[in-house]
């Protein structure tokens, strides 16, 4: 965990509710794709935890969804303004488990951390395929960024306005793969758990107090014992999750 100030270089909408935020500052606290940052926003007591989309030395990219007044306040901030961040929070995905042909499953606002993951998997010589699910064509974002990295991208949308009409899990059906990495809503995870042919990793979100393991506000029970989503997660192994029926 690091604490520091970051300068906003870009804060612009990608769709009607997904915003890209590019920050300049110290990224040495980040070690794994799938980690998150916790941002102090104006007029709010609690910080807002947001996953890291991608980073390189001195520059951090987040893509967040405007869900309430805190993220709306963040959306309204202009380039040049400073933000107070805790960075390098959470465990992130384990790249060592990928095997030769992993699949990356992203749904809705869960897609961003898969971009940094994809870039690093490609750099390691793996051939990741990216399966993305959106509500409609108008909600699509980042798909071109995965393609620009050189990854194979498959898309589904709820209404069929982009790609296959259906869900991300429908895209899995005829694929062979070595491992899966998922980020999206929990109903999607339950579908993946039924469909998956290999082990994988899921990233969870929760209302958090601190975001770094002190308050126990986001604890969950797993087959591997009690875990704090913020500190021991947000990424969990498929084999340790207790699915609520």
């Amino acid at each position, binding site marked *: *965990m690091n*604490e520091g100030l970051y300068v906003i270089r870009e804060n612009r909408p990608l769709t009607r509710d997904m915003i890209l935020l590019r920050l300049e500052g110290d990224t040495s606290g980040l070690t794994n794709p799938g980690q998150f940052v916790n941002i*102090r926003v104006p007029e*709010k*007591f*609690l*910080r807002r935890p947001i996953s890291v989309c991608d980073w390189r030395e001195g520059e951090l990219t987040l893509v967040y969804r405007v869900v309430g007044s*805190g993220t709306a306040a963040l959306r309204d901030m202009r380039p040049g303004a400073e933000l107070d961040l*805790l960075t390098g929070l959470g465990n992130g995905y384990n790249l060592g488990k990928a095997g030769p042909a992993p699949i990356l499953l992203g749904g809705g606002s869960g897609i961003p951390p898969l971009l940094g993951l994809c870039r690093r998997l490609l750099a390691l010589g793996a051939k990741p395929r990216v399966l993305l699910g959106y509500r409609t064509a108008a909600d699509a974002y980042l798909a071109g960024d995965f393609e620009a990295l050189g990854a194979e991208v498959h898309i589904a949308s709820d209404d069929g306005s982009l790609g296959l009409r259906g869900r991300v899990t429908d895209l899995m059906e005829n694929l062979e793969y070595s491992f899966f990495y998922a980020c999206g809503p929990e109903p999607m995870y339950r579908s993946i758990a039924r469909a998956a042919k290999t082990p994988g990793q899921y990233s969870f979100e*929760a*209302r*958090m*107090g*601190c975001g*770094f*393991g*002190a*308050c*126990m*506000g*986001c*604890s*969950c*029970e797993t087959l591997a014992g*009690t875990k704090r989503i913020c*500190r021991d997660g947000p990424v969990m192994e498929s084999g340790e999750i207790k699915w609520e029926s």
Partner: protein
Amino acid sequence: MGKLSTVLCGIGLDNPVIPASGTFGYGYEFAELYDINILGAFSCKGTTLEPRFGNPLPRIAETPAGMLNAIGLQNPGADRVLSEELPRLRQLYRKKILANIGGFSVEEYAECARRMEADELVGWLEINISCPNVHGGGMSFGTDPAQAAAVTRAVKAVTRKPVIMKLSPNVTDIVPIALACQEAGADGLSLINTLQGMRFDLRARRPLIANTFGGLSGPALLPLALRMVYQVTRAADIPVVGMGGVSSAEDVLEMLLAGACAVEVGAANLTDPLACKRIIDDLPGVLEKYGFSSVEEVREAAKHG
């Protein structure tokens, strides 16, 4: 004595700043950012005799100038705290802790206290009779003078270490509870725990906290906490640790003027993990700004105020 030093129930502190139980874990996360030996002391996560998972999620909700929590005393139980957490803590922390203890019966408080007090890292026992987030225990002992006294007596009977009773603000008058603890032998008091509250999720049309109610903490609590510390220190003779919404060195000074001998910092640690370090760093300058040469001098001023 240093400029910032103070005394809590006969044990000297380098400064009056103590992270409050439940907002500092067992210290490791904060030790990634600063040397936690700069603290006056710290109150570790509340321990119960048996392990507890706590309440269902969501346990956290934001409020104007604060937050609600309904953790529900999640902890691995006294035996694992003693065999795993405290040995790990000892690797990075050389001072004493307040062992914060929760319970669901007088006997359970006493047994948990008996086990915890044996550890050399434990300087004080802080007995939580004020947790608003558990049923059939916690706060129910802190809202009735006779029950508060019964827990105090039972814990005092099993330890020679100072016993600090942590009081609830969820009462009509906190003074009779404080006096009942004092008469039952308490060495000190700490106050206030969180104030019970709730919020609604407008889209779902139901409470935001899964447990319905949660405990309010954060800056919103500061004036309420100051008032209660002031009332208690004027009625009781034993030392009082003040807490509730403290997030700056100025707030610490107010707590000392209200009569506290030391100050716990709670929710501020969650939003700013460097909060205690900043407060300790700022304290000498703030003392000077308001014409005090030492913490001891503020405490003297409070006695005559």
